[in-house]
């Protein structure tokens, strides 16, 4: 079956790849959005913590050996341990660094500067500890197979695993935030933390937990994404740009915003190159036919265009809190 010259299987292939990309962005954007939603800190260091998570994951998987699980053990243990390690690191960082700026003049601006500083410090720190060349961290053997084929493309186990993991994680986070006492306190703190303090709740503890949760999500994303990308000290720099686009489009401080934003932008990114392969002729204002190469190159630029349009028409994003930037 073909529509507009594009085979249906080809369309499905791109949908699948968009879902994988979208899942990565959802994982990263949720951590960023949670920290902003409660604490009002725009975490420019999120990419650096994501990178640190990948490096910790590499070390853990390198050290672990299991006679039962074989070479898969390292990855499984890394997947379980990295969020714990990064959660603890986030809590310590909040306690000894971030908490010092609370109730100071320009609190939010100081937060931005601290996190921006971390985005510069952490890559060099990682080079110092782990060395300059990138580190090998590959797909574990248990995921190195194809589930089925659509057209010519294999739907691989690891990419499918990332989609399922992201979906489970989103569901667990939703339960945590909307169905538990802790989640209720986090939401209340986001709306009116003075009232929450008056009710006798230790808000600073909640902030610490929330910051730790955001950093844990960044680290977990690092472990999940690393087998398909390169583990390198600069790996967090570029992905942070795309993550911010997702959060801005979805809405800062919202839970559902980054999820919907990530999935929409993932599809936009994956389906744009397909436009150039349809039979429809697209011309620019001079009458020149726009070739397939334009649409391949445009997939990234379109993300920025969508962000710009959203900022113009609905500055708080699709699902963002009103006045989030006030």
């Amino acid at each position: 079956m073909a529509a507009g010259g594009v085979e249906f299987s080809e369309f499905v292939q791109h949908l699948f790849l968009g879902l994988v990309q979208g899942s990565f962005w959802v994982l990263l954007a949720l951590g960023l959005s949670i920290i902003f939603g409660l604490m009002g800190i725009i975490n420019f260091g999120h990419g650096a913590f994501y990178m640190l998570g990948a490096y910790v994951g590499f070390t853990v998987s390198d050290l672990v050996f299991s006679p039962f699980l074989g070479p898969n053990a390292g990855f499984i243990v890394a997947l379980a341990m990295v969020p714990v390690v990064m959660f603890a690191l986030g809590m310590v960082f909040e306690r000894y660094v971030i908490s010092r700026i609370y109730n100071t003049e320009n609190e939010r601006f100081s937060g931005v500067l601290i996190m921006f500083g971390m985005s510069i410090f952490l890559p060099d720190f990682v080079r110092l500890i782990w060395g300059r060349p990138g580190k090998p961290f590959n797909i574990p053997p248990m995921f190195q197979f194809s589930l089925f084929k659509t057209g010519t493309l294999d739907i691989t186990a690891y990419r499918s695993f990332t989609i399922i993991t992201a979906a489970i994680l989103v569901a667990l986070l939703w339960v945590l935030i909307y169905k538990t006492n802790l989640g209720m306190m986090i939401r209340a703190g986001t709306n009116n933390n003075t009232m929450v303090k008056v009710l006798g709740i230790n808000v600073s503890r909640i902030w610490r937990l929330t910051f730790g949760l955001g950093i844990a999500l960044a680290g977990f994303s690092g472990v999940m994404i690393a087998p398909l990308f390169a583990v390198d000290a600069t790996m967090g720099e570029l992905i942070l740009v795309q993550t911010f686009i997702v959060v801005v489009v979805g809405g800062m401080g919202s839970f559902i915003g980054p999820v919907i934003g990530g999935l929409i932008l993932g599809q936009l990114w994956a389906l744009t190159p397909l436009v150039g392969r349809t039979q429809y002729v697209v011309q620019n204002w001079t009458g020149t036919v726009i070739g397939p190469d334009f649409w391949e190159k445009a997939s990234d630029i379109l993300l920025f265009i969508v962000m710009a349009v959203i900022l113009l028409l609905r500055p708080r994003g699709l699902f963002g809190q009103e006045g989030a930037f006030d």
Partner: protein
Amino acid sequence: MSRLDRRKFLKGAGLIGGIVAAQTAPPFLREGLGARPIKWGSIHPTTGPYSTEAFDQVEGVKIAIEDVNKEGGVDGREVKLLFRDDQFKWDQTTTHALDLIDNHRIDFLAGSMVGPEEVRLNEFSRKRKIIYANYPQHIMSTPGNAKKMSPLFFTANTTPYQLCASSLTYIAKNNLGKKIHCVFDDYIWPKMFIPAFEKLTKDFNLTWNANSSVSWVPFPTSMDYSATFPRILKEKPDVVYALNWGQRQVAFVKQAREAGLDKKVKIVLGATEITMPEAAGLGSYHGFNAAMMWHPSLASKYPAAKTLNDKFLARRKRPCSSYGMLAHDLTRLILDTARETKLYKRRDHFKLAKVLEGKKFQYSKGVCEIRACDHVCISEVFVMRGKSKAEMKDKFDHIEVIGSSSGEGNTVSCEAKGLKGPASERRA
């Protein structure tokens, strides 16, 4: 308390003024008329994404300078390295070049990693009439840039055309297939390969078209190459030729392997470096081919390559990359030639350039030659094969040399570029 008279005041003020002047005077004045060393001003991005390769460059330069000094220096003078880190920021490249040329009065300008740095330093060389030892790939010689190239610009590195020629020669000679599809990162360096593809695919009777046989990947933000795979698989090429670098290449190799692309088509990487398979993991380049300017395994063929690699292993605890080798060889070439001719002063640089033009040299690989018209280094380019995990002898042994090509046939001729006579005679 004694009263401060005019004489005491003038003496004191003179003394303080002298000390301040001595401390703040430009370095070349502070050195006075003593035995002035020959200054090699070298700029490398040792901070940033290519810091591993940049440190290798610095080490290569240091080894070359140490060896020259051990052999008596240049005209009895010691060669001194003035190293600057431009942090992979082009404004810093300019700032450091200005500081080195104006304040430190360097005798030779050297360094850099990528095109934007090369273009800036080339301009300094052209306007300030100073020899520039260029370490990255020679993009100033491409037909569009050739006339902007400084007549004092020299390199031991290859051009995009040479790299492309080596891979396509290998593909054609070994019958890897007729139909080629390219995966190019969307920036200037891969675009420089297009003219080479247009000519060489015709020469080798390969099927390739600039409009329909290239998948462009957004650069630098997108590092996911998977969106190009459906198109590649639909077009069913025999060979996929990929041009990407650093962590982007590592991501491409991992993703191609994960999607099973390497089992369906032959994959040739336009260029690689020893750090990339190392970051991708043991056996990760198995089944892939790639072009390289140099590889440490050449130590078994060339004694000088072994000496250089041993020094690297002792100092950096890792083998020498082609960046280290290229920086070493070019530094040695210029300093050795300056020593032979005693033409090291800035006013003699055009004379030194004339001697370097057409000069044949051999340090860490086969005989190389600097072509006079555009200073392209006619040298060997190697074709590599990725080893499997079982084949690897140590953790650095990811790839091996399986072929090489060299000669002027691998370059665009001087006539085709419209260049006549030696470059040193085309003064800015």
